[in-house]
């Protein structure tokens, strides 16, 4: 059990919070970098932000940020975030959840939220293991990983979140490493600033249950995408996303110009106000009723 650091940021909780993560957990640097990104890089008013999560250790993150929060059901963060953004596009909506939550239980929602290009950011804390339920395989666990429920080792292929996102034509696809907070913060900020659906898959060590994919394991394998990498080239992004031995970090792909889900619904064409600010259109409804005579 660890206590939050002293107040340094308006997103810090107003009182000391009992944080439920294990000492040394990779979620701590993600929490810090997210708060810095929101304040230092993006200057977002905490009142205009909603953090949405599902269930899992990573999904507890919104509990530790002074802002609006929707901590929903396992796997269901993305439709909730979609509903929030659709009802009030003025809000900045960020999902912070784990690999099991987003890619496993919520896999179907992930696929179809990408397709909708909802203007939200999804930060997936990817530690390749289930933490909260104590160490079972996740959809990103590598083949061969021995766990209590896979005693002979994982025998199915892991999901490649970047390649999956690219195949669905996500408009922003990035990967970061919690072990390199400065670089990761930049990527998170770019993702939130991006207009359209953005996914940041963040490598994060689980110090208790994953003895294979440790901080060192990630450190030995990650490298930054070179400056020449063209983020508008989706095919090349695919090629880089499929690299296996060494794992590139950075923005793989970005397409800023696309229409978002909220725009495409047409509800905001003539009226930018969020739904709650609007009057009921009784005259229109009455005319529709009378047309049924």
């Amino acid at each position, binding site marked *: 059990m660890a206590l939050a650091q002293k107040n340094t940021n308006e997103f810090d909780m107003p009182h000391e919070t009992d944080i*439920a993560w294990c000492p040394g957990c990779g979620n701590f640097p993600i929490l810090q970098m997210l708060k810095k990104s929101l304040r230092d890089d993006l200057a977002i008013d*905490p*009142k*205009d*932000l*909603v953090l*949405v999560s599902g*269930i899992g250790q990573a999904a*507890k993150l*919104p*509990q530790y940020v*002074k*802002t*609006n*929060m*929707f*901590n*929903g*059901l396992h796997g*269901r963060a*993305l*439709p*909730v*975030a*979609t*509903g*929030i*953004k*659709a*009802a*009030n596009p*003025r*809000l900045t909506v960020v999902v912070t959840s784990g690999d099991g939550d987003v890619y496993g239980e919520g896999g*179907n*929602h992930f*696929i*179809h939220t990408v397709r909708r290009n909802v203007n939200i950011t999804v930060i997936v804390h990817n530690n390749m293991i289930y933490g909260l339920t104590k160490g079972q395989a996740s959809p990103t666990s590598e083949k061969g990983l021995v766990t209590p429920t896979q005693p002979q080792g994982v025998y199915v292929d892991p999901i490649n979140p970047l390649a999956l996102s690219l195949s669905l034509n996500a408009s922003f696809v990035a990967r970061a490493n919690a072990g390199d907070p400065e670089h990761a913060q930049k990527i998170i900020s770019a993702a939130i600033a991006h207009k359209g659906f953005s996914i940041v898959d963040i490598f994060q060590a689980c110090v208790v249950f994953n003895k294979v994919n440790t901080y060192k394991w990630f450190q030995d394998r990650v490298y930054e995408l070179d400056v020449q990498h063209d983020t508008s080239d989706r095919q090349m992004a695919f090629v880089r996303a499929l690299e296996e031995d060494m794992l590139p970090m950075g923005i793989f792909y970005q397409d800023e110009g696309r229409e978002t889900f909220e725009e495409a*619904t*047409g*509800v905001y064409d003539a*009226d930018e106000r*969020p*739904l*709650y*600010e*609007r009057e*009921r*259109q*009784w005259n*229109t*409804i*009455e005319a*529709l*009723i*009378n047309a*049924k*005579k």
Partner: protein
Amino acid sequence: MAHHIKDDLSIVISGQAGQGIQSIEYLLTHILKLQGYHVFAVKEYMSRVRGGTNSTEVRISSNDRRAFVDRIDLFLPLDKSSIPHCADRLSKETIIIGEQKRLETDYKLLDVPLLEIAHDVGNRIFANTVAAGVVLGMMQSDRAIAEDYIRSFFSRKGDEIVAKNIDALMRGFKIGEHLAFTHEITFTIEKDEAVKEAVFLTGIEAVGFGALAGGCNFCSSYPMSPSTGLLTFLAQHGKECGVLAEQATDEIGAINMNLGAWYAGARGIITTSGGGFALMTEAVSLAGITEIPLVLHLAQRPGPATGLPTRTGQEDLNLVRYAGHGEFPRIIFAPGSLMQAYKITAHAMDLADEYQVPVIILTDQYFVDLLSTIESTDLKESKDKNHVIETKSDYQRYELTDNGISPRGIPGYGKGFVCVDSDEHDESGHITEDHDMRDAMTQKRLYKKAVALAKVAFAPEVIGPKDYTQLVVVWGSNYHVAKEALERSGKKKLAVAHFSQLYPLHNSTKKILAQGKKLIVCENNETGQFANLLEVETKCTITGRINRSNGKPFSVEYLTSQFKKI
């Protein structure tokens, strides 16, 4: 043989899916309604897009009858399979109009070569208009009204189509008039001027207009028969009425999206059927603990699993009563008339908003597909205001209050933060495992709100003699059929109690039930789900049950015979 049809005419059109039953029904019902006849229509259909055998019943009556009858007075079989399909509803009184050549039947027909005439007009497609014309002609309907309607109905398709349809209609008319004359067929059905000005709509449209009247501006749902009509309705009128209607990827996404939207200030509705609702149950529980409003329309069909996808039933009361893990309050409605559907849906939006509980509206296939009228002056806007508050900086989403209702803020409106949590939470909305706080939240959600909800429950409507000693209880779509059966049964001490709210029950329920020394519960399921609920909630003694679970609605004749036995 002469036929004299007085006060009550049941027309049945039957044929394959895609053959034009709906077109004939549409033209007939609308033209007759515009002439001032009380018109009621209801359909039954198979789960297929083409082929099979479907039918529609159109009932025209002096006394505004709004229930399904087995009896067929005028039958229009469009294909060979239609006659065996409806055989048990035909009698020697039934007038059958059809093509002898196509139907190959021993039944005595009034032979009308619909297709031949249609070809003569220009295309077989006009056969439907000819058929409508035959019926209208037999009834000696007003030609000008019929012609005007055809003109406006087909106007989008161009002058030629309009002219040909009028030609087809008039040829039908002439044949109809001739048949009525030669076979001495007469109709005496009273008209009512008020009907001309009434609004003519289906059950699902009544729910849809009710949602709009209640300020609905968001709908996320997944298609499933027989519930999809509401999503279609809101999608089609979305832009003009400011409703964001989204076809979700699945039911789980639909309900979670809706909860996100309500959380951010929208007023949402969801439409689904039993199987879809089953998928949503975890999120119903989420609505329970987060106290996010939820309005859910469930159009029932028989299960289990896929069951009879396009048929009617009342099998999902237990499902919605108990859905969701853990314990939390809920409201369950079951409208029985178009007016109730409209008012209850509008009211449901307000109740969900004010009390922050799941509100479920149960209809069924029979109800959503029926067509009838409402006085337009009765369709009013819900005057209830949004219950959303502007938050202060010390806002706590789950503030413990006397009535269990915490003022509901939304993110981005005011100075406070709105935190909601599927975990047990403290007043600020953050996770807690404090047992005293748990007790306080349980008190708030279950007991304090229950008191408030009981006060606003709808009472059952008791129809019949005040000094009844026998009582039949019905709910939802069995309103009109039970009412008519009661009248026909001629029983002096028998009354019907119709429940449009099934849970929580109005506090008059116990007394109403206790007066029935014979207490019979009549519902479209096998196990008596509402009967069981009444026994548990009111400790009443139910002496008899009338159940039907074969996918067909109760008919007036069947219920009358059952009522007579009481």
